[in-house]
């Protein structure tokens, strides 16, 4: 169990520090993301992976993007952070056109890709990988200093993986690697967090603790968070808004408060995974 649990009592001070440390400007912002009639097509493909996407996300929102496999959820995240250029339409993040200012925008976005597993022979320690998350924000020609290292160590401690810092990344379990990737995304102190199926490899204990840690980040620091999942049972009870996608299109975009039975409807429409937690199965 080494490194697998988060000791809540010992982390109270750390979390307070984390709250202080983060995002002074984040709560001031509106319109964090704006997509206008966006189409994104992969190279060599004729059919767009997302079509006619219009989406506005305000600051401090906590959104889940749901949909079956190949619905276009990952494409949506990668279009938002500019990794995939849209073939049509406009993408603005923090008020900036992602096509023109992608690098600058990405320095403020924490991104956890789907199923990112490192080969066991790869010559990178877990600490190397987490620290890399800060490199863009640190900027060119400056090396990470002790302050950066302390910050990263603190995040790893919060996620309960600090003891694994010097082990080769590829030798860690899938769940441990996933926590490291979350730590990496948080290392740059992002204003916007994009998580693509971030809990899929976690053990049962971590599946409860890591989402509640992310919920606290949202509540206490006002971080805007978008989580992609194909599993409705993973949706946090604190989630405010659901965007459902199918076949590259947005089929629903609603606040849960206004549609309490939305999850049940989605389950019936999309045939997605769900647990008894919501009394739907």
């Amino acid at each position, binding site marked *: 169990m080494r490194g697998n649990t988060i000791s809540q009592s010992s982390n109270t001070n750390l979390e307070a520090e984390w709250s202080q440390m983060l995002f002074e400007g984040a709560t001031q912002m509106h319109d964090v993301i704006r997509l206008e009639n966006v189409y994104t097509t992969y190279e060599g493909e004729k059919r767009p992976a997302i079509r006619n996407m219009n989406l506005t996300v305000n600051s401090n929102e906590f959104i889940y993007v749901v949909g079956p496999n190949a619905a276009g959820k990952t494409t949506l995240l990668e279009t938002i*952070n500019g990794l995939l250029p849209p073939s049509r339409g406009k993408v603005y993040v923090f008020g900036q056109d992602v096509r023109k200012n992608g690098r*600058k925008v990405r320095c403020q976005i924490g991104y956890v890709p789907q199923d990112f597993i490192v080969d066991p022979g790869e*010559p*990178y320690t877990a600490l190397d990988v987490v620290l*890399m*998350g800060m490199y*863009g*924000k640190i900027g060119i020609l400056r090396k990470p200093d002790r302050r950066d290292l302390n910050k990263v160590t603190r995040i790893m401690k919060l996620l309960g993986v600090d003891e694994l810092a010097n082990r080769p990344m590829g030798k860690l379990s899938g769940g441990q690697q996933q926590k490291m990737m979350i730590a990496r995304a948080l290392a*740059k102190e992002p204003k916007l967090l994009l998580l693509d199926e971030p809990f899929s490899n976690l053990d049962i204990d971590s599946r409860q603790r890591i989402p509640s840690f992310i919920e606290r980040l949202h509540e206490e620091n006002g971080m805007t968070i978008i989580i992609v999942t194909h599993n409705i049972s993973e949706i946090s009870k604190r989630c405010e808004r659901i965007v459902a996608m199918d076949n590259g299109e947005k089929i629903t975009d609603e606040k849960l408060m206004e549609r309490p039975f939305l999850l049940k409807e989605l389950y019936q429409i999309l045939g997605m995974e769900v647990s008894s937690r919501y009394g739907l199965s």
Partner: protein
Amino acid sequence: MQRALVGCVLAGLLTGLLGVFVVKMKISSMGYCMSHGAFAGAALGVAMAVDPLTTALVFSSITALFIGPIADKARLHADVITSIVFPLNMALAFVFLTLSPEVGLKTDVANVLWGSVLSITYPDAVYLTSICATTLALIFLFWKEFFAIMFDRKLAEADGISTKPFVYFIIFLTGFVVTLSLKLVGGLLIFALLFNPASTTLQFSHNMKRIVFLSPIVGAVTCVSGLFVSLFLDLPVGSCIVLVSTFVFALAVLLSPKRRRR
């Protein structure tokens, strides 16, 4: 002989160092293209009776300038682009060599094909030294960017690093280093110098900094060993260097702690 030794050490250091970046950035196929681009350029120089080094530099620079952006922009996988450019360069090289009136006999032709470490001149050594110093300085300055790109280019981009200039720089530098090392093993075997030391060192360490430090040493040692083996057995230098470095790689695979069962 002194110049040959200096050439072996410098080219071994440089190709060993650069090989780590080429392998870890997963642009090995571009490395093949660059090495054969230099080879085609040198062959053109021989055919036109001008300095093969100059034409090799021009050819590899042109290949470097085009191959990166083409791989990024074209709606084709990078492997497809390199699979087309690689035989194209080889075909051009053989056409140019055939145009040379004394093909097969002329020393320059043989040098381009198989290398001739004993023909390394003083300016060659100066070029290699200056490229070595520049490369080390740039890698030191931009280490964190290279490090992140070698881990995963897409993630590095997601973290706000502009990866293109760094990847293109490595491709361009590969062209230069390959061209300057052409005299060592020749155009047909040059890529072994690029990949064998890096692949050997990667068998032993989980620490990237250590790999970047050790790979050039392995490169230099295998080059010098190959030179002595060739002198001792009276065999071509280039072939001996490649045989030694492949033998060392095979040993590394056998002894690698990464392959032992836990």
